């Protein structure tokens, strides 16, 4: 569990305020999306969760422990951070070595590491590539490798920064399904993204940030149904919400998925009870 109390972060020496009085609580097993314009403070906030940044004011608690009292390497056991560009993370000669790096640094026993690497590579579809160089993989596969290299450290929380950038639709769905799977296993997933479609399809909770503050925080459906606030944060909800809003005069939509919207329109047109 991650708790943030009255968090302020100010960049020195320029004195720019990146985060203003953030209060937040993320329970175990949540699937949270953090959205907001560039410069709203998303990455800055999330870097406090694994200790890369320490608060200027306020406190961040990970499983009850103050992050200021921990090293990043301690927090890496609990909170994994997958960076936006896998090519800024991948360095090893083989996929296997890349996946072994994290757990080895944490001091896991060798036989456990080997087992975990095999298990996770099978899960993410990289088992056949274990002895291949990472550069021979496609961009989408490298993105998966970046996630897998964090998973071998067995963190209970996984933070992913822009998981779908640089991927086409198919690649995006593949990585998101992996994250959904992990969430169903009990891991907490925190995702920073600009892709509203993905947010509406996968995130159960959405936090909207603007100029270093949290503007909205709640279940995704609720958040996307507040167009005025979203507009102020320069966020445009995905088209399914906009469609539902435009047609709300005729139908009170219960489901906001494409399939749901379609079936409710069909029922209405057929004169059936909705």
């Amino acid at each position, binding site marked *: 569990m991650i708790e943030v109390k009255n968090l302020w972060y100010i960049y020195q020496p320029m004195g720019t305020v990146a985060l203003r009085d953030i209060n937040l609580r993320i329970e175990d097993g949540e699937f949270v999306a953090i959205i907001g314009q560039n410069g709203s403070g998303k990455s800055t906030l999330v870097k406090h969760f694994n200790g890369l940044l320490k608060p200027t004011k306020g406190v961040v608690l990970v499983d009850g422990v103050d992050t200021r009292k921990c090293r990043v390497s301690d927090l890496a056991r609990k909170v994994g951070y997958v960076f936006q560009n896998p090519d800024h993370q991948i360095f090893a000669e083989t996929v296997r070595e890349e996946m072994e790096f994290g757990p080895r640094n944490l001091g896991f026993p060798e036989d456990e590491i080997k087992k975990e690497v095999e298990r996770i590579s099978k899960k993410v579809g990289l088992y056949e590539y274990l002895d291949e160089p990472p550069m021979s993989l496609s961009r989408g596969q490298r993105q998966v490798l970046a996630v897998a290299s964090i998973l071998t450290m067995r963190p209970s929380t996984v933070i992913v920064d822009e998981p779908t950038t640089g991927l086409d*639709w198919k690649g995006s769905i593949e990585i998101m399904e992996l994250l959904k799977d992990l969430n169903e296993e009990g891991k907490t997933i925190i995702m920073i993204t600009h892709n509203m479609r993905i947010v509406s399809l996968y995130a159960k909770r959405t936090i909207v940030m603007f100029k270093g503050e949290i503007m909205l925080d709640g279940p995704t459906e609720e958040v996307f149904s507040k167009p005025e606030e979203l507009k102020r944060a320069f*966020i445009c909800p995905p*088209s399914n919400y906009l469609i539902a809003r435009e047609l709300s005069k005729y139908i009170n939509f219960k489901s906001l998925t494409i399939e749901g919207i379609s079936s409710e329109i069909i029922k209405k047109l057929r004169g059936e009870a909705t």
Partner: protein
Amino acid sequence: MGNIIEVRNVSYRYRFSKREALKNISLEIEEGSFVGIIGPIGAGKTTLCYCLSGVIPHILGGEFKGDVFVKGINTRDATTPELTQIIGFCQQDAESQLFMTDVEREIAFPLENLMFPPDEIKARVEEALRITRLTKYKKRHPFFLSGGEKQRVVIAAVLAMRSEVIILDETLSELDPLGAEEVMETVSRLKEEGKTIIMVDHDLERLGRFADKIVLIDEGRKVAEGTPEEILSNIDLLREHYLDPPWTTQIAASLVRAGIHLPYIPITFESGVELFKKLLEGT
């Protein structure tokens, strides 16, 4: 309006590669039109852009078969400086296309290289800054610009050459929504000025709004070509090639499958909502 670009039976294999990146592609692009190129990753879209702009065969080696004609000139016979003044190419990564420590110098850079007189350079720089709305940033170091602003600088540098054709290869793919909107605004202004635009993009709905023609590329082949209405309403075709059709189109397709008659298949948000409202008003 004739064809400004003609691609005839182009095939291409990268050096050190065993497979063909492009397989026998033929294509015509009308002057002043806006052509959208779509397809999954690895389809060959960037390779096609390389062939259109002369990067292939002049800069990259490999095996290039077929011909590309730009304003009637075969790209094999023209030099890169000649081609670059007819076709401007904006690659996906903005940072690897910017070399100067301020914006106005970046725009002036290609003109200096090609020995334009200083007065001409000055006029073109001002014009490019104006069109891309970057005048207030002219002395800024690109490190301090947002993603969308950087892409606009890339476009401005291409505009300085006053090329009639502008290729945008995934220019918006890594931008936030605001940045993408700013760039799209510039691009639509270029279209109004009569430039021919070729744009590779993943957002089918956005492309559908601006394009006169959509070309679907996959595995090096031209799979389909047509108006946005023709291509983007063909949900099965798009799904087959791992693309995400516009969501109003997907809803419309579900309605059709359920036996409901639709006068047309919408491909944009606005036309979809309008259609659904009309249908629901009838109930």
